[in-house]
């Protein structure tokens, strides 16, 4: 009986499901684009995500001040802003964006300059409960970093025109903590067992033969009264004024000499600085937005003024990044406070309101996300598609098979193993396009043998980049002579090339011979198949050209990341994709306290060049400075460049206006399905 029912059910199921048209045919009739998107998004709040797959959806939902051109890189079309221009005489540091008065949120409410101010204030929120990962993108704004990181000195004294001492002089005092003296480096260590490197950092504060109790200084609850004078000096200087608690500031006020102020800051000024910060703590840390004077102002409902920390002729380019998109103030506040992070339900289907060409229709975890055309969009006439459906296909082999079975218009990628097959089977559908990203190896310069630049360079020159590109990847990638991929007016310094003879010579000069005296080193990579093949190729190259055997360590993703952040590796294969078309997106990460540096390398010269470039408006001069900065890092070689990325994907011929773009950020509003 049971079986009869079952087979009847099965048979009827088969009849019902006899839809003979393919998914793509149905989608073409419905005018919906189906694309592979590699996984389930972590979220859709533009301020709380940092991944590529999330950005693919967010770019269709929201719209920034400017919009990508569908075919030309570094070209900005009007988006939420109708026109924009730098204020004359400001040297690209002040910009006015005139918003489009017809621009509306998908619920019909107009998009105003206040939404932008609200958004930037939200992303930069210094609230300790606000876990935005990508706030740095708004550090281009004047005082953006100071507000986000709560630089009290700069906000409470520097921004006050009536303050008796100019900020230019005052800022030389130790507000941020000494760069070389980080308390976390001394945690759980004993003074008598400190290594030479660490000891050197403490030396300037110690008398001959003096020792300090590291456990007391690094304790989570420091008891100032128990510390000796030297210990207090180390503690205060390591922390810096901005990071001290009210009680610690009060203690410092009693003896200001415990901190480095420079002699240009007299005692009464020191007291005034401390008084202001203490008063702020006493008042239960009221929000400093007004005092911080962050460079974003709503002049009126439809005029947005942006003040930058330095000249940025490429600002329109940056506003296309989703961190610069507006979020709907009225909706965010309906579901929580300004910076209620994940508990807010404003991005859920039914709640989410967006200002871009599409709006959210359906969101099913691990199943699909579907967007539909936003009828309130100001330029709805231009939007050709009636919807976009994103499939979270993690298995790229399945994705390629689905493409072959007419289930999608566009794949996220083509795995390198399948590229030869794709070239043969889908010669017209396979696209291989340059992509601003670089594959490189991070080198841990803190440990032997890679504290020696010659060893690092020897390893860099022994990588046969061409072989990796052509024999392993086969996706049109090109050997990287530097860390910034070639684009626009930037001149790549062209430093690193495969040169086994020179590599060998450098290794010999370094004092290490390619013998057993060489310390054992390992190469960290992810647990993917492609990661392993690449690592094995590198291993073979170093063995062949330098005679050094490197061990491969594979770790799954989160452990791999954690090991990098902890600098617990010798060599580590990694990638970096540009956020916007400017070399700084690849260079800024290598500054001393950059969260993504992780190599232990830093250079004053490099940072000075970056700083200079930041304050240069003339484009050729600026590019020259950045090129010099890159040359500085490459000649020191804390990173070994391997190749510059390409994107490889399959696309159906009826999809139009999906053109090669260096950032691979295709504006969905212009995409068409040709019938």
């Amino acid at each position, binding site marked *: 009986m049971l079986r009869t029912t079952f087979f009847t059910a099965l048979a009827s199921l088969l009849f019902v499901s006899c839809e003979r048209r393919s998914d793509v045919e149905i989608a073409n009739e419905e005018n919906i684009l189906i694309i592979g998107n590699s996984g389930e998004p972590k979220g859709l709040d533009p301020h709380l995500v940092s*991944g590529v797959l999330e950005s693919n959806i967010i770019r269709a939902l929201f719209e920034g001040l400017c919009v990508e051109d569908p075919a030309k890189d570094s070209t900005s079309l009007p988006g939420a802003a109708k026109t924009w221009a730098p204020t004359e005489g400001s040297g690209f540091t002040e910009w006015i964006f005139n918003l489009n008065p017809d621009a509306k949120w998908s619920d019909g409410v107009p998009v105003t300059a206040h939404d932008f101010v609200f958004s930037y204030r939200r992303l930069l929120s210094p609230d300790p409960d606000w876990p935005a990962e990508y706030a740095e993108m708004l550090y281009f704004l004047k005082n953006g970093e100071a507000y986000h990181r709560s630089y009290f000195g700069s906000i409470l004294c520097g921004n006050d025109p009536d303050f008796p001492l100019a900020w230019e002089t005052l800022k030389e005092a130790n507000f941020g903590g000494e760069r070389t003296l980080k308390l976390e480096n001394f945690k759980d260590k004993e003074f008598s067992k400190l290594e030479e490197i660490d000891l050197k950092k403490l030396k300037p504060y110690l008398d001959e033969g003096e020792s300090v109790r590291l456990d007391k200084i690094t304790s989570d609850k420091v008891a100032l009264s128990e510390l000796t004078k030297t210990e207090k000096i180390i503690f205060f200087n390591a922390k810096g004024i901005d990071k001290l608690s009210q009680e610690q500031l009060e203690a410092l006020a009693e003896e200001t000499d415990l901190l480095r102020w420079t002699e240009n800051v007299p005692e009464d000024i020191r007291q005034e600085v401390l008084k202001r910060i203490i008063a702020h703590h006493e008042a239960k840390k009221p929000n400093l937005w007004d005092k911080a004077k962050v460079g974003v102002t709503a002049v009126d409902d439809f005029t947005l003024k942006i003040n930058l920390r330095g000249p940025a002729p490429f600002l329109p380019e940056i506003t296309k990044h989703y961190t610069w998109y507006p979020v709907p103030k009225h909706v965010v506040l309906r579901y929580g406070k300004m910076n209620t992070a994940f508990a807010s339900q404003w991005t859920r289907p039914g709640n989410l309101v967006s200002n871009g060409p599409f709006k959210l229709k359906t969101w099913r975890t691990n199943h699909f996300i579907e967007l539909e055309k936003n009828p309130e969009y100001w330029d709805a006439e231009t939007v050709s598609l009636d919807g976009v459906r994103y499939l979270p296909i993690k298995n790229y082999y399945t994705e390629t098979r689905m493409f072959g*079975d007419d289930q999608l218009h566009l794949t996220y990628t083509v795995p390198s193993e399948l590229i030869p097959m794709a070239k043969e089977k889908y010669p017209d559908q396979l696209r291989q396009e340059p992509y601003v990203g670089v594959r490189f190896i991070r080198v841990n310069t803190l440990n032997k043998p890679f504290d020696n630049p010659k060893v690092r360079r020897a390893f860099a020159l022994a990588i046969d980049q061409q072989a990796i590109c052509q024999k392993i990847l086969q996706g049109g990638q090109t050997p990287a002579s530097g860390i910034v991929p070639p684009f626009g007016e930037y001149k790549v310094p062209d430093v690193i090339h495969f040169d086994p003879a020179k590599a060998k010579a450098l290794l010999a000069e370094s004092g290490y011979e390619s013998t057993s005296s060489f310390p054992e080193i390992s190469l960290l990579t992810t647990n993917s198949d492609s990661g392993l093949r690449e690592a094995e190729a590198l291993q073979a190259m170093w063995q062949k050209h330098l005679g050094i055997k490197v061990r491969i360590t594979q770790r799954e993703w989160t452990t791999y990341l954690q090991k990098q952040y902890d600098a617990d590796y010798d060599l580590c294969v990694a990638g970096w994709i540009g956020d916007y078309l400017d070399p700084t997106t690849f260079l800024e990460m290598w500054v001393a306290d950059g969260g993504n540096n992780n190599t232990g390398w830093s250079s004053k010269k490099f940072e000075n060049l970056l700083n200079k470039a930041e304050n240069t408006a003339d484009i050729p001069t600026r590019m020259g400075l950045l090129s010099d900065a890159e040359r500085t890092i490459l000649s020191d070689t804390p990173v070994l460049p391997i190749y510059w990325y390409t994107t490889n994907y399959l696309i159906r011929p009826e999809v139009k206006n999906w053109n090669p773009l260096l950032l691979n950020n295709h504006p969905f509003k212009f995409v068409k399905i040709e019938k």
Partner: protein
Amino acid sequence: MLKTILSRVIQTIVVVFLLVTFVFFAIRAIPGDSFASDKATSPEAKEALEKLYGRDKSLPVQYANYWKNILTEGNFGDSTAMKGRKVSTLIAESFPVSLKLGLLSLFLGMGIGIPLGIVAALFHNKWQDYTAMVVAMAGICVVAFVLGPIFQLSIARPLSWLNVAGWNRTSDILLPAITLCFGVAAYLARLTRGGMLDVLSQDYIRTARAKGVPTLQIITKHAMRPALIPAVTFLGPAFAAIITGSFVVENIFLVPGMGQHFVLGITSKDYNLVLGLVLFYGILMGLANLLSDLALIFMDPKLRTS
């Protein structure tokens, strides 16, 4: 009977409690960080996340809070990989999918495996037996990540009405169900064959044969019930396992089921998600075992008295 059920329920509660406790601490011992992202997270952002998820508290407090939230609010916590989404919602969304797929493949597996086992036993040591056992062995050995792509390329591609992967058409369930059913069918065939051989050599069967009862009747009326006891014992846990999804099959066929939550939860160190799943799976497993015990009692009169 009632006593059996009651003691089983209590056992299940104890086991689930121990299981969750063990996993709670074990998963925290795995290297890696729930909040690691491909872009460096600032110490401030990380601190904020830890606070948001109650990780700033000591382990015993976290453990106590975990149970407190479940027992007082029915709150299993939020996923850390998919922030802002509740573990209970994720399970509620994905379980029906896995249940549907699991039930179909379980029925398919039973439909193939049990007859195959009976045929093998009836033709003991003949070619029918060998063929059936080779098929069963292949079903155990050839894993889903081999079968899946083969089915996709050789069945779905040529058939216009059948998709390679996805979960939108009613026919989308077929290939994953067939892929999943092979393992079940193979085990069932082997267990049924063993049980059947055992029963067929019993005295009462010989008596029946001697009395001239037709073979078909001997099997359906006398041999079947006791012969299926090993298979039913296996079906309990197999049922719980199969309706909670399979990572490999879901990954290959793009099925939005529960299986991928298990694996991705572990790789992304999504503690709450993994714990929620373990708890759910533990309860299901206890329930399935209880059901299979009850079925055994029904099938084997000897158990009824004990």
